[in-house]
């Protein structure tokens, strides 16, 4: 167990999340292994997104939301209110369901976060070019960096958002259903991109697309509602779980019978 924790990029212990009186998530334990893709699946409303948001403290933005338990990242507990949230979010990036480039030029989309974290104009440009190249967008946008990011297609916008997160060179990137607002072709491009990121970063992805989870996940966690709150009912190697889930709800869900 101790050895496992050392390999883990993030270790979650006894995590509970409450919105007012409602317990969205109870007693979640999970080790997220380094440089692998961990997929979180399960029906809507069982706390997957809440769990994801707690990993980079975006739960702070939700009024009335309380997080209990431990999230260990680089030997420090993130749920500690004194933890430096801004540098944490630089190390644990996030990509959302709906592409959300800032409604400004493509270049500004990189400059705003990079300048904020202390990079020079020159470094901003280098990192922007590198990140855009990584997501395969450089060829497509290199001649219109000063144009608005909103003019890009949905798939391009989502790749821009991934590049924007990558430019900060994070350890972990959290994906909250990154393909569900995209058409099938754009979705496939983004999915391939996520797979290619595995060498560089640790990926945690929430997805409702079980076929996608089967294709890309190394680790799988199935969330389910128990006693009125979300929790993880099954977790481990993705191949094994897809083959023979031990939890009956997980079995039904993964076979497409329920949820």
């Amino acid at each position, binding site marked *: 167990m101790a050895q496992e924790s050392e390999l883990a990029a993030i270790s979650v212990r006894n995590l509970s999340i409450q919105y007012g009186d409602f317990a969205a998530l109870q007693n979640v334990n999970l080790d997220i292994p380094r440089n692998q893709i961990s997929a979180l699946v399960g029906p809507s409303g069982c706390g997957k997104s809440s769990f994801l948001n707690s990993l980079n403290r975006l739960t702070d933005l939700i009024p009335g939301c309380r997080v209990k338990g431990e999230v260990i990242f680089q030997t420090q507990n993130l749920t500690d209110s004194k933890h430096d949230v801004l540098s944490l979010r630089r190390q644990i990036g996030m990509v959302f369901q709906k592409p959300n480039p800032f409604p400004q030029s493509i270049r500004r989309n990189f400059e705003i976060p990079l300048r904020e974290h202390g990079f020079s104009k020159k470094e901003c440009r280098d990192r922007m070019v590198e990140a855009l190249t990584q997501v395969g967008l450089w060829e497509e946008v290199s001649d219109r960096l000063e144009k608005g990011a909103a003019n890009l297609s949905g798939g391009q916008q989502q790749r821009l*958002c991934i590049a*924007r997160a990558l430019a900060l060179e994070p350890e972990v990137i959290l994906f909250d259903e990154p393909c569900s607002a995209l058409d099938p072709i754009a979705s496939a491009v983004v999915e391939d991109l996520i797979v290619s990121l595995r060498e560089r970063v640790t990926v945690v992805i929430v997805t409702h697309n079980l076929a996608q989870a089967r294709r890309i996940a190394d680790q799988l966690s199935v969330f389910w509602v128990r006693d009125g709150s979300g929790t993880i009912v099954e977790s481990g190697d993705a191949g094994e779980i897809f083959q023979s889930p031990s939890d009956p709800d997980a079995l039904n869900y993964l076979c497409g019978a329920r949820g």
Partner: protein
Amino acid sequence: MFRHRNDRGLKWLLSGVALICGSLVIGIVGFLLVEAWPVFSSGQIFAFFSDGAWQPGSDREPQFGITPMLLASLAVTLLATALAVPPGILAAIFQIYYSPKWLATFQDRAMELLAGVPSIIFGFWGLTVIVPIINQIRPPGQSLLAGGIVLGLMILPTVSLTTRAALQAIDRSLVYGGAALGLSRPRQIFSIALPAARSGILSGCMLAMTRAIGETMAVVMVCGNIAKIPHSIFDPVRPVTSTIALEMGYATEGHRSLLYAAGFVLVVLTGFLLLLRRREPVL
């Protein structure tokens, strides 16, 4: 599309109401033009901008220059805008990003109340509070500055309420996106939220300016009403609106047409201000 009878009926009703509202504007401008027609047909309109002084009632040598008054209107409006826009925007930012909920609600009510205070009250307050203070710095007190301060206070709620609405209307996903990149709150506000809300904020400022340029009662009371081109903000001025209000009561035929023409010029000026509100290119 309009297959159902009640839907078709509603369409006609709404079209009718919209038509009436739209044609009211045309009707009012048309009325101004008809009343001011003698000024245009006699060529007096050119004297508006070429004569140095405003003495329309003089028997010997009448002069019809409204340039000092137009400049006064513009100067008072610009000063009021310059005074009201920064605090209006900052107050809205505080309200949305930093204020506790009870204080935000209080601020809303206070701004709505401020917007509802009759302009005569603002004028009265300006005359008894602001003017004596300015008088101590540089007499006479009734001045361009007094007008700018009082008007600025009157348009402050317009700026603040429209800015708040524009900031609230920006996509929440931008706020989350900014936070997820580790941006501090000031950076989120000034680099993301304000640019995203820019066109709404600009519209609010233009709305405030058009209100300021058309305001009459308060400026009559605090501006001093001397139709000369001001050389400093402490000089008394007389905006176009004041002139119309002060002289309409006793104006005879030719003079009356002049005042209507001055009003028409003011409407054209407001129209120009609204044209300045160009459509932002979609980024």
